[in-house]
């Protein structure tokens, strides 16, 4: 594993000058991922905050080949790029060993982009798909997605006098992806750059499709002070809402802080710490919603226990 100092000497693949909000975690995640390989990479980006903010013509923050085609098809687009690479290599027109990565929001992964992602994984293209999971459609103004936490208030599942925010739990896309039995899938968090980069590096070298789901705090959509983004991602892990783990060729392994919590070496913080840190859950602080808070806690516990069980096999 390389040190931070060594990393700072690496070429900058995503430059400054983009138009993401102050405190946005998405460029942090992307930079960490792009530090995980020294091979030439081609990036395919789904429509969303990250794409519109880094590519406004005639400027670009990209120092690597980059393509955005639409919201739902970043995995299909990279399938095409990677197929071109395979055939041109076979025909001797390309010599270099190259890598392919998708960056997509949770909307572009869990919802509209899921079919293309599933198809591309099933076909076995060699690419790393990175979901920058900010738990809502942020680019269009904080609407609910299949990744939005139960009880969160968004502009399409607002907390009102009758309904306290989103009614459903998010789907567990990392497990759904793992069920494709691809070489590698993992969850990561930008606060633990070492864990994230190691996982991205494994994903790049998996020899087939790989998936990385990264919790990506959004100060706009989550309603917290933009200086606290990294703290927020850490809190997600400490509450076990966002366990760090990997599915590596059939083996489940809990990693980093999550591993320490699982081993009893670190504290598992209550979900209330998470809920009270963000404006999107403000309404849940009213004691009349205590049953809902308990439900969220119970769901975190159930999933956490299940993960521990999986990792013991």
């Amino acid at each position: 594993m390389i040190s931070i100092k060594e990393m700072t000497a690496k070429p900058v693949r995503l430059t400054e000058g983009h138009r993401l909000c102050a405190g946005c975690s998405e460029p942090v995640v992307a930079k960490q991922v792009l530090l995980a390989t020294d091979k030439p990479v081609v990036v395919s980006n789904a429509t969303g905050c990250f794409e519109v903010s880094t590519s406004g013509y005639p400027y670009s923050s990209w120092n690597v080949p980059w393509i955005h085609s639409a919201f739902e098809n970043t995995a299909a687009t990279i399938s095409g790029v990677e197929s071109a690479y395979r055939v041109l290599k076979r025909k001797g027109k390309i010599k270099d060993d190259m890598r392919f990565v998708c960056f997509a929001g949770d909307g572009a992964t869990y919802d509209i982009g899921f079919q293309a992602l599933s198809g591309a994984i099933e076909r076995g293209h060699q690419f790393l798909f990175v979901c920058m999971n900010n738990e809502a459609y942020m680019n269009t103004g904080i609407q609910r997605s299949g990744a939005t936490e139960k009880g969160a208030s968004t502009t399409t599942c607002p907390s009102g006098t009758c309904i306290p925010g989103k009614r459903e739990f998010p789907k567990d896309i990392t497990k759904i992806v793992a069920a494709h039995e691809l070489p590698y899938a993992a969850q990561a968090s930008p606060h633990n750059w070492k864990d994230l980069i190691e996982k991205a590096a494994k994903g790049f070298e998996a020899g087939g499709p790989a998936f990385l789901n990264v919790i990506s705090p959004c100060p706009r959509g989550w309603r917290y002070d933009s200086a606290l983004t990294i703290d927020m991602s850490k809190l997600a892990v400490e509450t076990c809402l966002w366990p760090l783990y990997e599915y590596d060729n059939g083996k489940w392994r809990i990693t980093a802080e999550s591993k320490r919590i699982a081993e009893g070496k670190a504290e598992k913080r209550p979900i209330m710490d998470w809920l009270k840190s963000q404006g999107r859950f403000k309404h849940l602080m009213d004691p009349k919603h205590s049953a809902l808070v308990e439900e969220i806690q119970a769901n975190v516990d159930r999933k956490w226990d299940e993960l521990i069980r999986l990792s013991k096999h």
Partner: protein
Amino acid sequence: MKRIAANGDQAVALSWKQINPDVCASYPITPQTIIVEAFSDYVADGEVDTEYVCSESEHSSMSICIGAAAAGARSVTATASAGLAFMWEMLYIAASMRLPIVMTVANRALSGPINIHCDHSDAMGSRDSGWVQIFAENVQEAYDNSLMSFRIAEHPDVHLPVMNCLDGFIVTHAIESFTPVEDDQVKKFVGEYKPLLPLLDWKNPHSYGPFDMPDYYYEHKYQQAMAMNNVIPVFKEVAAEFEKLTGRKYDLIEKYMVDDAEYVAVAMGSTAGTLKAVVDDLRKEGHKVGCIKVRLFRPFPYQEIAKALEGKKAVAVMDRVISFGAVGPLFSDVRSAEFDNRIHPRTVNYVYGLGGRDVGVEDLKVVFREMEAGTAKNINYLGVKQ
């Protein structure tokens, strides 16, 4: 090369085999499926070394072609009807990225009610997406247009995607004899693919598909429009070269007995062939009739059409599609060509053949008869049971 027998889909697949494209994205839909099946045989037998990607949908097939073409690969696919409609969003993106993707469309009606047979509603739905659209009359043309499509798409003055349209079942499934070009001559004619600004050239990184604000979007669309204008001279140049190679002469439109005709029917695709037979019959009876086949539909050959229709008494434009609440798309193009050139033959619209309704010689004679008698309405629904 000697004549062989094949249907239109097999002929297109043969052209692809001879070209050996880098990437082929495939998803089955009638009446196109034979193409991707036949091509998969070539792949399985090692007759081509194409990367053959069986996608999970047409939306992804077009996305794969976009990724592959941007990466620097010669890319092909085929679809029809619902599949083309499912690609709609990506058609615009392929064209705006100026990617020379070639796609065969086996023209088929759109739902509902679901119907698998020929009409042009799929192609017309994608009319304004920025693709060049070429229509074939028969198997020979399906094959020849396929070869020429690559040259037009990849021409440096064009660099736009091309749709090779064939009438579903009529051209795609009817077995006809046709004359293919020799393998090595195809290779020479189509040439080695030289991609422009490929993504895989990582030492010179390029961005495809960035975000445009109002200060640039319009200019980018303007550049696309200018590239479309270049298609007409490029088509002629490519067709002339093709004629030298094969002796088969193709132009933007094909005129049949038009010069001295008083009554002319205009159509696209297989119907143009039937119209020629009708014209032959009616000429024998002394009627001064002719027909025009529009081969290149986008960009539309306004000048050529107007010139061909000068001095005619009446013109019937045949649309194999309904534009609900409006006249047919071919009709409105033909009429604006006439208007701009200040020629005013009585011009009427015939909607016909929807959902694969058979249109034979006798059916089409009605069109000329009504034109001559002056009984045709502005919009006529040929052969509809009322």
